Protein backbone atom coordinates (compact mmCIF):
# COMPACT_ATOMS: atom_id res chain seq x y z
CA UNK A 1 0.00 0.00 0.00
CA UNK A 2 1.40 3.40 -0.89
CA UNK A 3 1.50 6.21 1.62
CA UNK A 4 -1.15 8.11 -0.32
CA UNK A 5 -3.57 5.21 -0.05
CA UNK A 6 -2.74 4.76 3.58
CA UNK A 7 -3.36 8.45 4.21
CA UNK A 8 -6.66 8.23 2.38
CA UNK A 9 -7.67 5.35 4.61
CA UNK A 10 -7.29 7.55 7.69
CA UNK A 11 -9.12 10.42 6.05
CA UNK A 12 -6.05 12.57 5.43
CA UNK A 13 -5.68 14.72 2.33
CA UNK A 14 -2.69 16.21 0.63
CA UNK A 15 -2.02 19.63 2.10
CA UNK A 16 -2.51 22.61 -0.18
CA UNK A 17 -4.18 20.60 -2.90
CA UNK A 18 -6.47 22.72 -5.06
CA UNK A 19 -10.17 21.87 -4.63
CA UNK A 20 -12.45 21.40 -7.60
CA UNK A 21 -13.85 24.62 -9.06
CA UNK A 22 -17.29 23.95 -7.64
CA UNK A 23 -15.93 23.27 -4.13
CA UNK A 24 -13.72 26.30 -4.46
CA UNK A 25 -16.66 28.56 -5.22
CA UNK A 26 -18.65 26.98 -2.39
CA UNK A 27 -15.82 27.61 0.06
CA UNK A 28 -15.57 31.20 -1.11
CA UNK A 29 -19.31 31.65 -0.72
CA UNK A 30 -19.13 30.40 2.86
CA UNK A 31 -16.59 33.15 3.51
CA UNK A 32 -18.88 35.91 2.23
CA UNK A 33 -19.19 37.54 5.67
CA UNK A 34 -15.44 37.81 5.92
CA UNK A 35 -15.22 39.25 2.41
CA UNK A 36 -17.82 41.89 3.14
CA UNK A 37 -16.32 42.79 6.52
CA UNK A 38 -12.83 43.07 5.02
CA UNK A 39 -14.09 45.34 2.24
CA UNK A 40 -16.06 47.49 4.66
CA UNK A 41 -13.16 47.73 7.11
CA UNK A 42 -10.80 48.82 4.36
CA UNK A 43 -13.17 51.48 3.11
CA UNK A 44 -13.51 52.80 6.66
CA UNK A 45 -9.81 52.83 7.38
CA UNK A 46 -8.72 54.10 3.97
CA UNK A 47 -9.06 57.77 4.76
CA UNK A 48 -9.36 57.77 8.52
CA UNK A 49 -6.26 59.88 9.00
CA UNK A 50 -7.22 62.51 6.45
CA UNK A 51 -9.04 65.52 7.80
CA UNK A 52 -11.71 65.23 5.15
CA UNK A 53 -11.95 61.46 5.59
CA UNK A 54 -14.33 59.64 3.29
CA UNK A 55 -15.09 62.88 1.49
CA UNK A 56 -11.93 62.28 -0.53
CA UNK A 57 -13.56 59.36 -2.29
CA UNK A 58 -15.89 61.88 -3.89
CA UNK A 59 -13.48 64.82 -4.10
CA UNK A 60 -10.82 62.94 -6.07
CA UNK A 61 -13.03 62.08 -9.06
CA UNK A 62 -14.61 65.54 -8.85
CA UNK A 63 -11.22 67.18 -9.27
CA UNK A 64 -10.38 64.74 -12.04
CA UNK A 65 -13.59 65.54 -13.85
CA UNK A 66 -12.97 69.26 -13.44
CA UNK A 67 -9.43 69.05 -14.74
CA UNK A 68 -10.10 66.71 -17.67
CA UNK A 69 -13.36 68.43 -18.51
CA UNK A 70 -11.60 71.78 -18.63
CA UNK A 71 -8.58 70.65 -20.68
CA UNK A 72 -10.47 68.43 -23.10
CA UNK A 73 -13.29 70.92 -23.33
CA UNK A 74 -10.85 73.52 -24.64
CA UNK A 75 -8.94 71.06 -26.84
CA UNK A 76 -12.02 69.72 -28.54
CA UNK A 77 -13.57 73.10 -29.14
CA UNK A 78 -16.67 72.67 -31.26
CA UNK A 79 -16.20 68.89 -31.61
CA UNK A 80 -17.48 68.17 -28.12
CA UNK A 81 -21.03 66.95 -27.85
CA UNK A 82 -23.93 68.59 -26.07
CA UNK A 83 -23.92 68.57 -22.26
CA UNK A 84 -20.18 67.97 -22.28
CA UNK A 85 -19.71 68.49 -18.48
CA UNK A 86 -22.24 65.77 -17.63
CA UNK A 87 -20.69 63.54 -20.30
CA UNK A 88 -17.28 63.87 -18.62
CA UNK A 89 -18.61 63.48 -15.07
CA UNK A 90 -20.33 60.18 -15.91
CA UNK A 91 -17.23 58.94 -17.74
CA UNK A 92 -14.74 59.86 -15.02
CA UNK A 93 -16.86 58.61 -12.11
CA UNK A 94 -17.65 55.22 -13.61
CA UNK A 95 -14.15 54.72 -14.98
CA UNK A 96 -12.74 55.26 -11.50
CA UNK A 97 -14.45 52.01 -10.45
CA UNK A 98 -12.74 50.12 -13.26
CA UNK A 99 -9.29 51.53 -12.45
CA UNK A 100 -9.59 50.78 -8.74
CA UNK A 101 -10.68 47.19 -9.46
CA UNK A 102 -7.80 46.67 -11.86
CA UNK A 103 -4.98 48.15 -9.76
CA UNK A 104 -6.47 46.93 -6.47
CA UNK A 105 -7.05 43.46 -7.88
CA UNK A 106 -3.47 43.29 -9.11
CA UNK A 107 -2.21 43.88 -5.58
CA UNK A 108 -4.81 41.76 -3.81
CA UNK A 109 -2.55 38.71 -3.45
CA UNK A 110 0.95 40.19 -3.51
CA UNK A 111 -0.07 43.00 -1.19
CA UNK A 112 -1.48 40.61 1.39
CA UNK A 113 1.30 38.05 1.54
CA UNK A 114 1.27 37.90 5.33
CA UNK A 115 -2.46 37.23 5.39
CA UNK A 116 -2.20 34.60 2.66
CA UNK A 117 0.64 32.87 4.48
CA UNK A 118 -0.94 32.78 7.90
CA UNK A 119 -4.58 31.88 7.38
CA UNK A 120 -6.23 29.23 5.26
CA UNK A 121 -9.14 30.45 3.15
CA UNK A 122 -9.81 30.40 -0.58
CA UNK A 123 -7.59 33.13 -2.00
CA UNK A 124 -10.44 34.13 -4.28
CA UNK A 125 -11.78 36.00 -1.25
CA UNK A 126 -9.09 38.67 -1.59
CA UNK A 127 -9.76 39.95 -5.13
CA UNK A 128 -13.50 39.62 -4.46
CA UNK A 129 -13.08 41.77 -1.35
CA UNK A 130 -11.16 44.27 -3.45
CA UNK A 131 -13.97 44.63 -5.98
CA UNK A 132 -16.55 44.72 -3.15
CA UNK A 133 -14.56 47.59 -1.71
CA UNK A 134 -14.78 49.28 -5.11
CA UNK A 135 -18.56 48.82 -5.15
CA UNK A 136 -18.90 50.24 -1.64
CA UNK A 137 -16.86 53.26 -2.68
CA UNK A 138 -18.87 53.64 -5.86
CA UNK A 139 -22.24 54.00 -4.09
CA UNK A 140 -21.72 57.49 -2.61
CA UNK A 141 -19.95 58.43 -5.84
CA UNK A 142 -23.04 57.54 -7.88
CA UNK A 143 -25.19 59.63 -5.59
CA UNK A 144 -22.87 62.60 -6.04
CA UNK A 145 -22.78 61.93 -9.77
CA UNK A 146 -26.57 62.30 -9.96
CA UNK A 147 -26.40 65.48 -7.88
CA UNK A 148 -23.83 66.93 -10.29
CA UNK A 149 -26.00 65.92 -13.23
CA UNK A 150 -28.92 67.81 -11.70
CA UNK A 151 -26.78 70.85 -10.91
CA UNK A 152 -25.59 70.81 -14.53
CA UNK A 153 -29.18 70.98 -15.69
CA UNK A 154 -30.19 67.38 -16.33
CA UNK A 155 -33.78 66.58 -15.45
CA UNK A 156 -34.15 63.53 -13.16
CA UNK A 157 -35.98 60.63 -14.75
CA UNK A 158 -36.94 57.03 -14.10
CA UNK A 159 -34.25 55.67 -16.44
CA UNK A 160 -31.67 56.73 -13.83
CA UNK A 161 -32.51 53.51 -12.02
CA UNK A 162 -31.22 51.51 -14.98
CA UNK A 163 -27.79 52.40 -13.62
CA UNK A 164 -28.31 49.63 -11.00
CA UNK A 165 -28.31 46.64 -13.41
CA UNK A 166 -25.62 48.39 -15.44
CA UNK A 167 -23.34 48.73 -12.39
CA UNK A 168 -23.99 45.06 -11.60
CA UNK A 169 -22.80 44.03 -15.07
CA UNK A 170 -19.89 46.42 -14.77
CA UNK A 171 -18.94 44.82 -11.42
CA UNK A 172 -18.99 41.39 -13.04
CA UNK A 173 -16.62 42.63 -15.73
CA UNK A 174 -14.35 44.35 -13.20
CA UNK A 175 -14.31 41.20 -11.08
CA UNK A 176 -12.96 39.22 -14.02
CA UNK A 177 -10.32 41.88 -14.71
CA UNK A 178 -9.30 41.94 -11.03
CA UNK A 179 -8.87 38.14 -10.97
CA UNK A 180 -6.74 38.11 -14.11
CA UNK A 181 -4.54 40.96 -12.86
CA UNK A 182 -4.20 39.31 -9.42
CA UNK A 183 -2.70 36.16 -10.89
CA UNK A 184 -0.48 37.93 -13.43
CA UNK A 185 1.09 39.96 -10.62
CA UNK A 186 1.84 36.83 -8.64
CA UNK A 187 3.89 35.47 -11.55
CA UNK A 188 5.39 38.75 -12.72
CA UNK A 189 5.62 41.40 -10.01
CA UNK A 190 6.82 43.89 -12.60
CA UNK A 191 3.26 44.00 -13.87
CA UNK A 192 2.29 46.55 -11.21
CA UNK A 193 4.78 48.98 -12.72
CA UNK A 194 3.11 49.12 -16.11
CA UNK A 195 -0.41 48.87 -14.72
CA UNK A 196 -0.85 52.64 -14.15
CA UNK A 197 0.19 53.13 -17.78
CA UNK A 198 -2.33 50.55 -18.99
CA UNK A 199 -4.97 52.29 -16.87
CA UNK A 200 -4.17 55.66 -18.41
CA UNK A 201 -4.11 54.28 -21.96
CA UNK A 202 -7.54 52.75 -21.38
CA UNK A 203 -8.76 55.99 -19.85
CA UNK A 204 -7.86 57.92 -22.98
CA UNK A 205 -9.09 55.25 -25.39
CA UNK A 206 -12.44 54.40 -23.82
CA UNK A 207 -14.31 57.53 -24.74
CA UNK A 208 -14.29 58.85 -21.18
CA UNK A 209 -13.65 62.37 -22.42
CA UNK A 210 -14.78 62.42 -26.03
CA UNK A 211 -17.54 61.17 -28.21
CA UNK A 212 -16.14 58.52 -30.55
CA UNK A 213 -18.68 59.31 -33.29
CA UNK A 214 -17.56 62.91 -33.46
CA UNK A 215 -13.82 62.61 -32.99
CA UNK A 216 -13.11 59.48 -35.01
CA UNK A 217 -15.66 59.90 -37.81
CA UNK A 218 -12.85 60.06 -40.38
CA UNK A 219 -11.97 56.45 -39.57
CA UNK A 220 -15.24 54.47 -39.78
CA UNK A 221 -13.54 51.19 -38.93
CA UNK A 222 -12.44 52.65 -35.62
CA UNK A 223 -15.96 53.75 -34.83
CA UNK A 224 -17.11 50.21 -35.60
CA UNK A 225 -14.43 48.80 -33.31
CA UNK A 226 -15.71 50.98 -30.48
CA UNK A 227 -19.12 49.32 -30.88
CA UNK A 228 -17.52 46.26 -29.22
CA UNK A 229 -15.50 48.15 -26.62
CA UNK A 230 -16.78 46.97 -23.23
CA UNK A 231 -15.82 50.11 -21.31
CA UNK A 232 -17.02 52.56 -23.95
CA UNK A 233 -20.32 50.75 -24.34
CA UNK A 234 -20.85 50.71 -20.56
CA UNK A 235 -20.32 54.45 -20.45
CA UNK A 236 -22.58 54.97 -23.45
CA UNK A 237 -25.47 53.11 -21.80
CA UNK A 238 -24.98 55.10 -18.60
CA UNK A 239 -24.99 58.38 -20.53
CA UNK A 240 -28.10 57.44 -22.48
CA UNK A 241 -29.89 56.59 -19.24
CA UNK A 242 -28.83 59.70 -17.36
CA UNK A 243 -28.46 62.51 -19.88
CA UNK A 244 -31.28 64.35 -21.59
CA UNK A 245 -30.25 63.90 -25.18
CA UNK A 246 -27.82 61.02 -25.45
CA UNK A 247 -28.66 57.92 -27.49
CA UNK A 248 -27.27 54.40 -27.48
CA UNK A 249 -27.87 51.25 -29.41
CA UNK A 250 -29.70 48.57 -27.37
CA UNK A 251 -27.14 46.13 -28.76
CA UNK A 252 -24.72 47.67 -26.28
CA UNK A 253 -26.34 45.61 -23.50
CA UNK A 254 -25.32 42.45 -25.32
CA UNK A 255 -21.80 43.71 -25.83
CA UNK A 256 -21.42 44.65 -22.18
CA UNK A 257 -23.12 41.47 -20.91
CA UNK A 258 -21.11 39.06 -23.03
CA UNK A 259 -17.84 40.80 -22.21
CA UNK A 260 -18.70 40.78 -18.49
CA UNK A 261 -19.52 37.09 -18.20
CA UNK A 262 -16.77 35.93 -20.55
CA UNK A 263 -14.21 37.93 -18.55
CA UNK A 264 -15.53 36.63 -15.24
CA UNK A 265 -15.52 32.98 -16.30
CA UNK A 266 -12.06 33.26 -17.78
CA UNK A 267 -10.83 35.17 -14.73
CA UNK A 268 -12.28 32.63 -12.29
CA UNK A 269 -10.74 29.63 -14.01
CA UNK A 270 -7.44 31.41 -14.57
CA UNK A 271 -7.24 32.47 -10.92
CA UNK A 272 -8.37 29.11 -9.54
CA UNK A 273 -5.77 27.20 -11.59
CA UNK A 274 -2.95 28.81 -9.63
CA UNK A 275 -4.56 28.52 -6.18
CA UNK A 276 -1.70 26.36 -4.88
CA UNK A 277 0.77 28.96 -6.01
CA UNK A 278 -0.45 31.93 -3.95
CA UNK A 279 1.51 32.76 -0.85
CA UNK A 280 4.43 30.59 -1.76
CA UNK A 281 7.92 31.92 -1.35
CA UNK A 282 9.61 31.73 -4.72
Amino acid sequence: MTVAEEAEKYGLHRVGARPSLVDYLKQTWSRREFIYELAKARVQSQNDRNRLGMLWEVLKPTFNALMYGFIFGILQGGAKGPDFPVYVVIGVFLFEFFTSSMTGGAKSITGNTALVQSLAFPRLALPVAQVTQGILTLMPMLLVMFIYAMILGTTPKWTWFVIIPLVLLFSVFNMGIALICARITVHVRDFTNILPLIGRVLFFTSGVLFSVDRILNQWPWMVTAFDYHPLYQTLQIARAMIMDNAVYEPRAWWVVGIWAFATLVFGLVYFWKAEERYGRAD
Partner: protein
Amino acid sequence: MRINFDDLINPELHPEYEPERIFSDDTSFIDVVSPDEVTNSNLSIDPNRQPVVIVDNLHVKYRVYSSGKAVGAAGARRLLQSNMRGVRTVHALKGISFVAYENESIGVIGSNGSGKSTLLKAITGLTPPASGSVYARSRPSLLGVGAALIPGLSGDKNITLGGLALGYSRQEVEEMREEIIKFAELEEFIDLPMRTYSSGMSARLKFAIAASKQHDILIIDEALAVGDAKFKKRSEAKIREIRENAGTIFNVSHSMNSIKETCNRCIWIEKGVQKMDGDTDTVIKAYQAHLKKK
Protein backbone atom coordinates in the same frame (compact mmCIF):
# COMPACT_ATOMS: atom_id res chain seq x y z
CA MET B 1 47.19 31.52 13.23
CA ARG B 2 43.62 31.30 12.08
CA ILE B 3 41.05 31.94 14.72
CA ASN B 4 38.09 29.69 14.65
CA PHE B 5 35.23 31.78 15.91
CA ASP B 6 33.22 28.76 16.83
CA ASP B 7 35.77 28.03 19.54
CA LEU B 8 35.05 31.39 21.13
CA ILE B 9 31.44 30.52 21.72
CA ASN B 10 30.65 28.63 24.83
CA PRO B 11 27.98 26.19 23.76
CA GLU B 12 26.67 25.96 27.29
CA LEU B 13 25.82 29.64 27.27
CA HIS B 14 24.51 29.67 23.74
CA PRO B 15 23.22 26.21 23.06
CA GLU B 16 20.88 27.31 20.30
CA TYR B 17 23.23 29.62 18.44
CA GLU B 18 24.91 28.85 15.18
CA PRO B 19 25.92 31.41 12.56
CA GLU B 20 23.57 31.67 9.61
CA ARG B 21 25.09 29.56 6.92
CA ILE B 22 22.69 29.47 4.02
CA PHE B 23 24.47 32.16 2.03
CA SER B 24 27.93 31.90 3.52
CA ASP B 25 30.88 30.42 1.69
CA ASP B 26 30.23 27.10 3.31
CA THR B 27 28.49 25.24 0.55
CA SER B 28 29.02 21.82 2.03
CA PHE B 29 25.33 21.29 2.46
CA ILE B 30 24.28 22.54 -0.96
CA ASP B 31 23.38 19.61 -3.08
CA VAL B 32 25.88 17.35 -1.44
CA VAL B 33 23.19 14.83 -0.84
CA SER B 34 21.43 13.61 -3.91
CA PRO B 35 17.90 12.46 -3.25
CA ASP B 36 18.69 8.79 -3.74
CA GLU B 37 21.50 8.92 -1.21
CA VAL B 38 19.08 9.75 1.51
CA THR B 39 17.75 6.70 3.19
CA ASN B 40 14.02 6.78 2.92
CA SER B 41 12.82 5.99 6.35
CA ASN B 42 9.97 3.58 5.88
CA LEU B 43 6.84 5.04 7.32
CA SER B 44 4.87 2.81 9.56
CA ILE B 45 1.56 3.87 10.93
CA ASP B 46 0.55 2.67 14.34
CA PRO B 47 -2.85 1.07 13.70
CA ASN B 48 -3.99 1.74 17.26
CA ARG B 49 -3.69 5.51 16.97
CA GLN B 50 -5.30 8.06 14.71
CA PRO B 51 -2.71 9.72 12.45
CA VAL B 52 -3.31 13.43 11.85
CA VAL B 53 -0.33 14.47 9.75
CA ILE B 54 1.79 12.24 7.55
CA VAL B 55 4.97 13.66 6.12
CA ASP B 56 6.23 11.29 3.48
CA ASN B 57 9.83 11.55 2.31
CA LEU B 58 9.63 15.31 1.98
CA HIS B 59 12.22 17.14 -0.08
CA VAL B 60 12.23 20.90 -0.46
CA LYS B 61 14.60 22.78 -2.72
CA TYR B 62 15.17 26.48 -3.17
CA ARG B 63 16.89 27.93 -6.16
CA VAL B 64 19.05 30.91 -5.35
CA TYR B 65 21.67 32.90 -7.16
CA SER B 66 25.06 32.60 -5.64
CA SER B 67 24.61 36.25 -4.69
CA GLY B 68 21.86 35.07 -2.41
CA LYS B 69 19.07 36.61 -4.45
CA ALA B 70 16.05 34.43 -5.00
CA VAL B 71 15.62 33.32 -8.60
CA GLY B 72 12.03 34.41 -8.65
CA ALA B 73 12.85 37.96 -7.67
CA ALA B 74 15.23 38.48 -10.56
CA GLY B 75 12.55 38.10 -13.16
CA ALA B 76 14.30 40.17 -15.80
CA ARG B 77 17.41 38.10 -15.67
CA ARG B 78 15.33 35.00 -15.97
CA LEU B 79 13.66 36.46 -19.01
CA LEU B 80 16.85 37.56 -20.70
CA GLN B 81 19.15 34.74 -19.79
CA SER B 82 18.39 31.26 -20.87
CA ASN B 83 21.31 29.46 -19.28
CA MET B 84 21.13 30.27 -15.62
CA ARG B 85 24.68 30.76 -14.56
CA GLY B 86 25.41 31.06 -10.92
CA VAL B 87 22.16 29.47 -9.87
CA ARG B 88 22.48 27.11 -6.99
CA THR B 89 19.96 24.76 -5.61
CA VAL B 90 19.71 24.68 -1.87
CA HIS B 91 18.39 21.34 -0.82
CA ALA B 92 16.68 22.59 2.32
CA LEU B 93 14.94 19.38 3.37
CA LYS B 94 16.32 16.02 2.43
CA GLY B 95 13.76 13.37 2.99
CA ILE B 96 11.82 14.07 6.15
CA SER B 97 9.32 11.40 7.12
CA PHE B 98 7.18 11.06 10.18
CA VAL B 99 3.65 10.43 11.31
CA ALA B 100 2.01 12.72 13.83
CA TYR B 101 -0.85 11.31 15.84
CA GLU B 102 -3.79 12.86 17.59
CA ASN B 103 -3.00 14.78 20.79
CA GLU B 104 0.70 14.79 20.18
CA SER B 105 2.67 17.95 20.57
CA ILE B 106 5.84 17.84 18.59
CA GLY B 107 8.80 20.14 19.04
CA VAL B 108 11.05 20.78 16.08
CA ILE B 109 14.63 21.67 16.95
CA GLY B 110 17.86 22.25 15.07
CA SER B 111 20.48 24.92 14.47
CA ASN B 112 19.79 28.04 12.43
CA GLY B 113 19.24 27.30 8.78
CA SER B 114 18.66 23.63 9.44
CA GLY B 115 15.25 23.68 7.79
CA LYS B 116 12.85 23.95 10.75
CA SER B 117 10.84 26.81 9.35
CA THR B 118 10.90 25.27 5.90
CA LEU B 119 9.44 22.10 7.36
CA LEU B 120 6.62 24.01 9.03
CA LYS B 121 5.92 26.01 5.88
CA ALA B 122 5.76 22.78 3.92
CA ILE B 123 3.33 21.35 6.47
CA THR B 124 1.02 24.34 6.06
CA GLY B 125 1.24 23.90 2.28
CA LEU B 126 2.97 27.23 1.66
CA THR B 127 6.21 25.80 0.33
CA PRO B 128 5.94 23.33 -2.52
CA PRO B 129 7.75 20.05 -2.00
CA ALA B 130 10.30 19.08 -4.64
CA SER B 131 9.25 15.51 -4.04
CA GLY B 132 7.30 13.65 -1.41
CA SER B 133 4.15 15.02 0.12
CA VAL B 134 2.36 16.05 3.26
CA TYR B 135 -1.04 14.64 4.15
CA ALA B 136 -3.20 16.12 6.86
CA ARG B 137 -6.66 15.73 8.29
CA SER B 138 -7.37 19.43 7.96
CA ARG B 139 -5.27 22.31 6.77
CA PRO B 140 -2.67 23.02 9.46
CA SER B 141 -2.84 26.60 10.67
CA LEU B 142 -0.35 28.96 12.18
CA LEU B 143 -1.22 30.56 15.47
CA GLY B 144 -1.64 34.13 14.39
CA VAL B 145 -4.23 36.46 13.04
CA GLY B 146 -2.26 39.70 13.00
CA ALA B 147 -2.13 39.89 9.25
CA ALA B 148 -5.90 40.13 8.98
CA LEU B 149 -6.24 43.09 11.31
CA ILE B 150 -6.33 46.73 10.23
CA PRO B 151 -4.53 49.28 12.44
CA GLY B 152 -6.93 52.10 11.64
CA LEU B 153 -9.93 50.23 13.03
CA SER B 154 -11.03 50.00 16.62
CA GLY B 155 -10.12 46.92 18.62
CA ASP B 156 -13.77 45.98 18.64
CA LYS B 157 -14.08 45.99 14.85
CA ASN B 158 -10.81 44.14 14.58
CA ILE B 159 -12.23 41.36 16.73
CA THR B 160 -15.06 40.99 14.22
CA LEU B 161 -12.66 41.05 11.29
CA GLY B 162 -10.16 38.68 12.89
CA GLY B 163 -12.87 36.27 13.98
CA LEU B 164 -14.38 36.14 10.51
CA ALA B 165 -10.89 35.71 9.03
CA LEU B 166 -10.40 32.68 11.26
CA GLY B 167 -13.55 31.19 9.80
CA TYR B 168 -16.16 31.95 12.47
CA SER B 169 -19.65 33.10 11.66
CA ARG B 170 -20.77 36.54 12.76
CA GLN B 171 -22.85 35.02 15.54
CA GLU B 172 -19.95 33.00 16.91
CA VAL B 173 -17.82 36.13 16.96
CA GLU B 174 -20.47 37.90 19.04
CA GLU B 175 -20.46 35.04 21.50
CA MET B 176 -16.69 35.17 21.91
CA ARG B 177 -16.31 38.94 21.94
CA GLU B 178 -16.59 39.47 25.71
CA GLU B 179 -14.14 36.72 26.46
CA ILE B 180 -11.57 38.01 23.97
CA ILE B 181 -11.76 41.54 25.36
CA LYS B 182 -11.43 40.26 28.89
CA PHE B 183 -8.52 38.01 28.08
CA ALA B 184 -6.69 40.81 26.28
CA GLU B 185 -7.37 43.16 29.25
CA LEU B 186 -8.54 45.87 26.89
CA GLU B 187 -11.96 46.69 28.37
CA GLU B 188 -11.32 50.45 28.49
CA PHE B 189 -9.54 50.75 25.16
CA ILE B 190 -11.57 48.50 22.92
CA ASP B 191 -13.22 51.42 21.08
CA LEU B 192 -9.91 53.10 20.23
CA PRO B 193 -8.17 52.49 16.90
CA MET B 194 -5.61 49.72 17.11
CA ARG B 195 -2.79 51.97 15.95
CA THR B 196 -3.11 53.92 19.19
CA TYR B 197 -2.38 50.76 21.19
CA SER B 198 1.00 50.10 22.70
CA SER B 199 2.85 47.19 21.16
CA GLY B 200 2.00 45.08 24.19
CA MET B 201 -1.68 45.90 23.91
CA SER B 202 -1.93 45.00 20.24
CA ALA B 203 0.10 41.84 20.78
CA ARG B 204 -2.35 40.88 23.52
CA LEU B 205 -5.34 41.53 21.29
CA LYS B 206 -3.85 39.53 18.43
CA PHE B 207 -3.06 36.68 20.74
CA ALA B 208 -6.52 36.72 22.32
CA ILE B 209 -8.24 36.60 18.93
CA ALA B 210 -5.97 33.90 17.56
CA ALA B 211 -6.21 31.83 20.72
CA SER B 212 -9.99 31.82 20.60
CA LYS B 213 -9.90 29.35 17.75
CA GLN B 214 -9.98 25.64 18.29
CA HIS B 215 -7.29 24.23 16.08
CA ASP B 216 -7.14 20.74 14.77
CA ILE B 217 -3.52 21.03 13.73
CA LEU B 218 -1.67 24.01 15.09
CA ILE B 219 1.76 25.38 14.31
CA ILE B 220 3.51 27.70 16.71
CA ASP B 221 6.69 29.32 15.44
CA GLU B 222 8.85 30.80 18.20
CA ALA B 223 6.04 32.96 19.48
CA LEU B 224 4.90 31.11 22.50
CA ALA B 225 4.02 34.00 24.68
CA VAL B 226 3.70 37.74 24.37
CA GLY B 227 3.40 40.70 26.67
CA ASP B 228 4.62 41.39 30.17
CA ALA B 229 5.40 38.72 32.72
CA LYS B 230 1.82 38.54 33.94
CA PHE B 231 0.30 38.20 30.51
CA LYS B 232 3.03 35.82 29.47
CA LYS B 233 2.01 33.48 32.23
CA ARG B 234 -1.62 33.64 31.20
CA SER B 235 -0.85 33.19 27.53
CA GLU B 236 1.28 30.17 28.34
CA ALA B 237 -1.64 28.75 30.26
CA LYS B 238 -3.90 29.52 27.32
CA ILE B 239 -1.54 27.74 24.94
CA ARG B 240 -1.61 24.74 27.22
CA GLU B 241 -5.38 24.86 27.06
CA ILE B 242 -5.35 25.14 23.25
CA ARG B 243 -2.93 22.27 23.15
CA GLU B 244 -5.25 20.13 25.18
CA ASN B 245 -8.11 20.92 22.83
CA ALA B 246 -6.16 20.90 19.61
CA GLY B 247 -5.55 17.69 17.78
CA THR B 248 -1.86 18.10 17.21
CA ILE B 249 0.69 20.82 17.79
CA PHE B 250 3.99 21.59 16.11
CA ASN B 251 6.21 23.90 18.05
CA VAL B 252 9.39 25.50 16.76
CA SER B 253 11.42 27.27 19.34
CA HIS B 254 15.01 28.01 20.15
CA SER B 255 14.22 27.77 23.81
CA MET B 256 14.83 24.22 24.93
CA ASN B 257 12.95 24.94 28.14
CA SER B 258 9.82 25.86 26.27
CA ILE B 259 10.11 22.73 24.14
CA LYS B 260 10.65 20.58 27.23
CA GLU B 261 7.66 22.15 28.90
CA THR B 262 5.23 21.89 26.04
CA CYS B 263 6.18 18.95 23.86
CA ASN B 264 5.94 15.25 24.36
CA ARG B 265 7.80 14.38 21.21
CA CYS B 266 10.68 16.00 19.44
CA ILE B 267 12.15 15.96 15.96
CA TRP B 268 15.70 17.15 15.43
CA ILE B 269 16.70 18.38 12.00
CA GLU B 270 20.27 19.17 11.05
CA LYS B 271 21.14 20.58 7.61
CA GLY B 272 17.88 19.35 6.22
CA VAL B 273 18.35 15.78 7.39
CA GLN B 274 16.16 14.26 10.04
CA LYS B 275 18.63 13.33 12.75
CA MET B 276 16.37 12.03 15.42
CA ASP B 277 12.73 11.59 16.26
CA GLY B 278 11.51 10.55 19.64
CA ASP B 279 10.94 11.38 23.26
CA THR B 280 11.68 15.06 24.03
CA ASP B 281 14.29 14.58 26.76
CA THR B 282 16.29 12.04 24.79
CA VAL B 283 16.34 14.12 21.62
CA ILE B 284 17.23 17.37 23.40
CA LYS B 285 20.05 15.62 25.25
CA ALA B 286 21.46 14.30 21.99
CA TYR B 287 21.09 17.71 20.36
CA GLN B 288 22.91 19.47 23.16
CA ALA B 289 25.65 16.87 23.12
CA HIS B 290 26.01 17.50 19.39
CA LEU B 291 26.29 21.26 19.98
CA LYS B 292 29.01 20.77 22.60
CA LYS B 293 30.98 18.48 20.35
CA LYS B 294 31.25 21.09 17.61
